């Protein structure tokens, strides 16, 4: 588990990206991996497989639920969908993440007041 987190940008980042992605529409594991890869401009060198431990964690926490189905390409896929609880969680997480980002960027920004 620690290995995964070390590879993340920061603990929980991967989870947040997954949740955020699932907020738009339900996806199966492979599609989720591809989506995250593309939208993050390959910035995150995440092994595709590391998605799965994270997904299991979220299943256990009750933020997502999974159902087997058949994809457009006629594959057996397990589709993940955000639960109501998951939606609330991601909103909380995102807002606190944004607050943190704002804080960080204020500190990092050149001191405007003095200029």
């Amino acid at each position, binding site marked *: *588990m620690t*290995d*995964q987190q070390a590879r993340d940008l920061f603990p929980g980042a991967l989870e947040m990206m997954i949740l955020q992605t699932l907020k738009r529409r339900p996806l*199966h*594991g*492979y599609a989720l*991996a591809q989506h995250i890869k593309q939208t993050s401009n390959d910035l995150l060198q995440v*092994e*595709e*497989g*590391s998605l*799965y*431990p994270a*997904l*299991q*964690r979220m*299943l*256990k926490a009750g933020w997502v639920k*999974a159902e*087997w189905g058949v994809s457009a*390409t006629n*594959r*057996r*896929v*397990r589709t993940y969908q955000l639960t109501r609880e998951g939606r609330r969680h991601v909103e909380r997480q995102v807002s606190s993440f944004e607050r943190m980002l704002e804080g960080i960027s204020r500190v990092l920004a050149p001191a405007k007041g003095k200029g």
Partner: protein
Amino acid sequence: MNWLRRLFSRRKLYADLSLEMQEHLEERTAELIATGLSPDEAQSAARREFGNAALLEEHSREVWQWTTIENILRDFRFAARQLRRNPGFTLTVVLTLTLAIGANTTVFTMVNALLIRPLPYPHPERLAALTRHLAGVLPNGRPIDESDDSQDGETWELLRDNVSAVQAAAYSFDSSGVNLEADSRVRYVQDHRVSSAYFEVLGIKPFLGRIFTAEEDLPKGPNAAILSYELWQTLFAGDRNILGQAIRLKGEPYTVVGVMSPHVQTTVQADLWTPIQPWRGGEGGGDNYQIVMRLRDGATWTQVNGQLQPLHPSMFDRLLKGAKIELVARPLQEDLAEAKLKPTLILMSAVALILLIAAANLAGLMLVRVTRRTSEIATRMALGAPRSAILRQAVMEPLILCLAGATLGADLAYFSLHSFASLFPSGLIPLGGLQLDGRVLGFTFLCMVGVGLLIALFPVIATRRVSIRPTLADRSRNAGAGSGRTRQILVASEVCLTLVLLAGSGLLIRTLLYLETSPSGFDSANVLTASASLDNSRYHDPVVFQRLVHDSLSAMQQIPGVESAAMGLSLPYERGLNDGFKVLDGPKAGTEMVSSSAYVTPDYFRALRIPLVAGRSFTDDDSSSAAPVAMVNVSFARKFLGTQDVVGLHLGFGKASATIVGVIGDVKKRPGASANAPLSTEAVYYVPYTQVDKPSLKIIHVWFEPSWLVRTHAPITGLPDAMQAAMTQIDPKLPFARFHSLSDLQSLALSQQRIEVLLLTVLAGLALLISVVGIFGLVSNMVAQRRREIGIRMALGCTLKQAMVHVAGSGMAAVGIGLTAGLLLAMVALRILKSELYGVKNLDPVTLAIVSLLMLFAALLASFAPTLRIARIDPASTLRTE
């Protein structure tokens, strides 16, 4: 119950997970093929992008588990399975650990009871014994630093009158056998004489009635007795009306004032207690008291020792000149433990050695197991198992084995305490008995952890050393070279420690042999002895006493088959009475000394067949009205009179004196006046039983139970009954307390040596066995590991014999180093035995040579036995398997 449902649906969760990961890989592969890659390339690219699938799956599963506990449980199950698969190995290890930890636990109950567990009294830290401490340098240049807890009446009076910081009580160092008359029966019971404050000082309250009053403890005070609960139950059927009534004890009425609680724990075992009435006269004229003290509220030990310091009993002046003598309060536990401490520490050292030997052996075995699994470990690491998981597994096996060993070891200790404790001489059992309490189990736990760490250490180091590539690349060669060296060192240490144990038990065996086989000085065959208590007011009168002895011996003489009958205050193998005397003439005239002594009847020496060396023996003519006479033994003549020509010389006893009429041979006795070996020839003088005066008769029969002895022509069945019947004719109220043959008395005198020899020999044998198993294991493993090398050697023309010697050499080299180190260690370690050895030096070359040869022989067997398997190695087939 969400988690409960999850627990049962886990199988489905895992199956879903596997399937979906599988689908993921396939989808990616299909996509890559669509971009134009070959199926093979696509598949490996997909895998690369995916990461370590097995590991990720495991991590995903872990989400659903209580990781740590489940991992441990899984490792536990795995290790347990491995152990079940190797029952021989498991059994060996668990058995070794059980014996080693069991022995340590058992012996530690003694250490615990002696030194650690508080005495079974309230505030035991406020209890002390009064000791005489002698320190300094004697005129002969010998340094001295000794403590002695025997005190005389004057010291008691000084303490009582001058040391206000304590409440003190005197008591007799041992109980004495006395006869108790109840109804028409006479019972022989143990009477312990104690001061009025004895129970109060120890904090023991009576079950019924009261303890002694101060008045009852004054010289010539009223006769009072306190019964033990057990005696009260058996003899008086628990009758409460016994309080205030008189019982006939020692021929006089004693008022029962109290009954003690059941299982009362006193410093001396007793059936009843009577007041000791300490003072400076009578028995108080010698060091016949022991004194226990309790610190009064608000006082300190510094205060007590301050008050003790100015005290100067007159006996100090008679003691060793030149040394500084002072009275010191010594913690009671320390004082009580002293006599038992040495044997206990020797045993503890021996079992600690066993534990070390066992640990070294098991470490070697574990090492072999890990070495055999090197390639398995490397494979697992290559597949992504973290080192922590592998270490956890390496530690799990020793942990399980140690847990099993410790549990069974504690059981073994419990069992042996309950089954064999009765074999121990009662003198070795500490106050309060031996129990497995929390402290002992704590020690067992420490043993387990210690051994566990030792035997897990080597597998852990070996595991850490495993590197994946060389191990996997070269499967055929076992990476066991380094471990071979480690095992040799382990075996060498086992041999070293075993040799020390063997040498120790060898020395004790030689001591026992010396004590048992050195000439006794008399003929012990066909002699039966019987002792009885004459601590009875009827026999304080010399005339009555002499009539009893004379008439009872005449009656015993009438028993068919009896050759001679005699009586004496003490027997060979027993302690004699310590009595002072003055040499009146001859080369050492004027010397005042203390020696062992005894009164005897004229036939005493003839019945025991002790040879007369010079002069004459006592006769019936040496009566109370005749001139006082004495006989001395050869040692007495040499030690105190300075000449063998002693007939006609005179010894002074106070105002009286006696002429020496004969010299008699030495016999083996327990030490009295001089602390020698447990049995040795002591200087003894003898007086006729007819010439002992009234005050002496009264005192010595409190301490000694005299013995009647009969010599028969051949063994007679029913002799004890016949002797008792003869005695009953003369005095119906005088039962014999016990019957012994003279060899019984020898065994009794040597009981501590015997038990020491027995225990140490068993332990040394165990150590030898463990070491032999260790050497055998080392060489067997060497044979297995080097099959290929041996095959090549033999293919190149090496003979079978050369190959065997070559392989066994690794074992013998370890043995050689171990033996040398063992001999060196023995020279230092065996000093602990010095005080226990008689007739043999602690570096006895014969013993050391014998045990070294024994070790060497066992080691040779253990080294060459496994090499027989070399004969079955077929060079062709070993080479072909390459």
